[in-house]
Structures are given as C-alpha cells and as structure tokens.
C-alpha cells in the first residue's frame, strides 16, 4: 500500500533496495516528506521504547516461556513454583500491553519448536531430560525486585538451569507451510494436517494428541475418549469428525459430525473453566487465557476452507447444497424426496461443482439435471427424472 501523497510504502513487509534508494532521493528534494517520514519513524521508535520499558528481562521472559511450553516438567517443585510466581508477576503487564502477551506466546512457540527439532536429531538418551543423581541442584538466583512490577518480590532463576525437559518418547509429524498430509493413527483415526502444522502424541497413546496449526480429525469410535490438546483448549470426543485450528489468537473447533466437548486450558483459573459442547455444524473459539469456549456464528466463510476440501459426514443434503452454492456461486435444487438424505464424502475444492454433483447424485441414486448455460443444478430421484 503506497501512500498517494508521500509515496512512503507503509505497509510492505520490507522495502526493496530500489524502493529505499527512490525514497532517499525523494527525501533529498522534499522537506515535507522528510518531516513526515522522520516523525513517523520517531513515533514508531517511541511506541517501541514504551513497550520495551515494560518488558521483563529477557531471561525472565524465557523462564516463563519454558513453563508455558511445558518444558519444566521435571524441574524441582521449588523451581516450578518460582517460575509460576514470575508468571503471575508478569500477568498485569500482559493484560495492559497485549503486544507483550503476544511476544511471550511467540517465544513459547519458539521454545517448543527447538525442543521438537532437537528430539528429531538427538537420541532420547542424550536429550538431557533427566538429571543424573550427581548433577548439582538447580540454582535459584535472588535478584532485585524487577522495575516492571514493584510488587513482585519473586525469586528468579537462571534460564540456563531450567531445561529439565518433558519425556522425549513422543511421536511427532510436522507438515511444512503450503502442504497437507494425512496421518493414520494406531487406533484407526485419521488426521489431515494443513501446514504449517505439527501433531504429536506419546508412543502407545494415539488417542491423546497435541496439535499446533490446523488439523481435521476423523476419529474412530471407541469407548476411550479421543482428545486434542492445543495451547488454549482440550477437545474431547468419542467418535466423530471435526477441525481444529490454532494460532496466536486462540483455538477454533468446528464440528462436521457427532458431538465434541471443548474445554479451555488456563491453569491460573482451573476452577472457573467452562466446557462447551458442540454439535455438527457448530464452531467455538477459545481465546488465549480464556475460561470459556463460546460458540461463534458462521460469517459466510466456511470455517474449514483451510482443509482444501469439502467434508461431509452424515451431512443433510440441504447443508451440502448450501456449502456448494456458497463456494461456487451457483443454485442447487434438491428434490423434496432427497432432502432427508445425508451424505458422507470428501471432495477437493479444486473440482468443478458439476463433477462433485455427479458423484453426489451417484451416491444418492439420483440424477443431475442442468439448465442450459445457467448455473443451476437440480438433483432428482431417478424415477422422478424419468417421470
């Protein structure tokens, strides 16, 4: 986006070398533009300085990031307690400055990514997750009360001493950006991952998975519940299909068939957490730090469009038609005798709507009628069509 008056490219991710040189030339001959540019740069600098003044020391941020990444599992209770105190002390800053909260969440994801990468390359026995009896206890370093929270007289500690990590015998599937991968789990469930995404679970416990990114789950029915854990929520089912999308802004769960239960994750408010039950067609969203999972209304966009698929599981034909009409901007009439039918199937969104409807018709024992060049399709029962 180029400002029409100043020609300062405000909204590019980065200026090219040519753009920089062009701007420099223009500034040399345009004092008004120079003044505006300097003030804009100064404003950005001031905003940064204001936030920087609120930031805890970097090592403290890392300590909390490790805690929130679940990488302190084997640490001494006293260490975990000290970091939780630190976490509590930072809370007011995170509330007042959402950008600090976002920064910490990004750092948490970084720590998790490093841990996962390490486990890919280093044998579990050499991953440093268990301390030998000879190792010295963790060091707790008393520091001055941090300026960013005068009330927080917490015990701080060296981040280098904190990496007593979770058990590494986990399975992990990582899918790069722009690609998809289907994962077959040992219990018969399948997961479609849309990159960038990571799915992990402990060996032998494939009905309890963790997800970062986006995944669509077709869960094999069993008595043992299947749960998907993200940074913000735990989604529990017994046998159903649903999509989970998680990012910096929270976790969104959309149900295609069956029923799921979504419970926020918020260790600081465990007693206040409210579980939400979702049925087919419903979506809920859990914001970071939230204690509930409110249902959200459809906004016209298919909340599962990121799968690259149309996914129908015992879906009423009216809903099937509605989804296809919205995606392809066509009219689809379903004969009355077919409206009680349901459809189970998966279609690529790249397919032509006519091709999809031919398959749908075949599955229903129906016929597809079209009306000349008009984007109108009609599904009728075979006997109706012949009649």
């Amino acid at each position, binding site marked *: 986006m180029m400002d029409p008056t100043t020609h300062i490219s405000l909204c590019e991710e980065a200026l090219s070398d040519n753009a920089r040189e062009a701007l420099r030339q223009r500034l040399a001959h345009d004092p008004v533009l120079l003044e505006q*540019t*300097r*003030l*804009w740069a*100064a404003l*950005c*600098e001031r905003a*940064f300085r204001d936030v920087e003044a609120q930031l805890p020391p970097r090592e403290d941020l890392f300590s909390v990031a490790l805690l929130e990444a679940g990488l302190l599992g084997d640490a001494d209770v006293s260490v975990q307690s000290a970091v939780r105190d630190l976490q509590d002390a930072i809370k007011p800053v995170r509330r007042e*400055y959402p950008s600090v909260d976002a920064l910490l969440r990004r750092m948490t994801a970084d720590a998790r990514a490093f841990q996962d990468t390490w486990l890919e390359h280093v044998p579990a026995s050499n991953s440093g997750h268990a301390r030998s009896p000879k190792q010295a206890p963790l060091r707790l370093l008393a520091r001055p009360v941090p300026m960013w929270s005068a009330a927080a007289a917490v015990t701080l500690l060296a981040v280098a001493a904190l990496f007593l990590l979770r058990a590494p015998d986990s399975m992990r599937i990582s899918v790069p950006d722009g690609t998809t991968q289907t994962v077959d789990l040992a219990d018969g469930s399948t997961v479609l991952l849309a990159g960038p995404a990571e799915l992990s679970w402990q060996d032998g416990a494939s009905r309890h998975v963790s997800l970062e990114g986006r995944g669509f789950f077709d869960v094999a029915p069993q008595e043992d519940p299947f749960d998907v854990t993200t940074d913000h929520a735990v989604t529990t089912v017994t046998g159903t299909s649903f999509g989970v999308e998680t990012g910096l802004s929270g976790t969104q769960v959309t149900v295609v068939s069956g029923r799921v239960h979504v419970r926020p994750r918020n260790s600081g408010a465990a007693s206040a957490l409210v579980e939400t039950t979702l049925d087919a067609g419903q979506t809920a969203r859990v914001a970071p730090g939230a204690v509930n999972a409110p249902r959200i209304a459809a906004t016209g966009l298919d909340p599962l469009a990121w799968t690259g698929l149309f996914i129908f599981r015992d879906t009423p034909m009216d809903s099937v038609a509605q989804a296809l009409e919205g995606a392809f901007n066509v009219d689809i009439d379903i004969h009355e005798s077919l409206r009680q039918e349901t459809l189970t199937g998966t279609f690529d969104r790249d397919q032509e709507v006519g091709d999809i409807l031919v398959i749908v018709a075949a599955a229903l024992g129906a016929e597809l009628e079209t009306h000349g060049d008009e984007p109108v399709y009609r599904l009728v029962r075979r006997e109706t069509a012949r009649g």
Partner: protein
Amino acid sequence: MEFSNALVQQAKDGDPAAVDTILRGLEPIMRGFFTRRIGHRTEVDDLVQNSLIRVHRSIADLQEVSRLKAFAMKGALYELQDFYRGRYSAREMLHDILEPFGGAVAPERSGDRIDLDRAMESLTPLARRIIELRQLGFKYTEIADDIQSSEAAVKMQVKRAFEKLRGLLGALVLLLSQAW
C-alpha cells in the same frame, strides 16, 4: 548425533576437535529450528552461523556439561528474538534511509517533542498495538491473527495512523507544502 558429557567437557576445556564436532552436530539442529520458525530464507544461514558463534564463544562458560541442549537453545532463541525485532520494523527500515538527513529520531527540539506527543496521543489503542507488534517483528499476517482481524484491516489501521500524523504536522508544514 550424540553429545556425550565427555565430548562436551573436552570442548569446554578448549579441545578444538571436540568443539568442531559439537558445532557440526548442532548445525543441522539449528538449521531445522530456524527453517521451521521463519521458513526457507536466506536469513536462516545467518541465524545458524550467529547461533553457532554464540556457542563457540561461550562454551567454556557452560556450567554443566549435561546441559548442552539448554545452552544451545538459549543461544538460538536469543538470536531469533533479535531477528524478530530487526525485521519489518519502521525503525530498521527507515534508519539507513534517514541517516543522511540526521537519523530516524527527530532532534530534541521542543516543537518536535510536542508533535511527537500529539502524534502518540492521536493513536487509537488498536493502532498503537499494531505499531508495537510491528516493532516487535510480527508480520502483518501474524498481527491480523493476533487481533482477530484481516491483513487488509491491519494495514488500513496503519495507513489511518499515518494520515492522522500528517494532519498533526501543523501550519508550518502546510506552508512548506504549498511553497514546494
């Protein structure tokens, strides 16, 4: 790759071969980590190199040889945070452009300070949050995700903030504008 305590101890004691073995073992881990976090970009090479230099320079200070992972992770995450803060920020982007004209930050003249104070006050909380996130190295798409909005809406907020700022520059600039 295995990093035995004996190997790490040798590196800590200054054995060049042991240091080399550790750095070679860490290289693919660092590369995998940075690629995972920022994609296949030329910056990955620099980040890997800088992180390994950090390890190389400070491995003698490693307190416990069993904690090489902690040591390496800390170096990599610090390097990544520095990278985030440098990328995309108007500070970085405009710094070298404004260098010949006295730098990015306005001189401490009283008039400039008043302009800047007024400009800061004119920002909506949302615009300020966006600018803060931008300065902390978040992409527009990441900011949109964070505030549950669209990338276009985020960019529009930035543009509006800039337009407000231009409106605050006062009569002097207006006159200058007309004169030029």
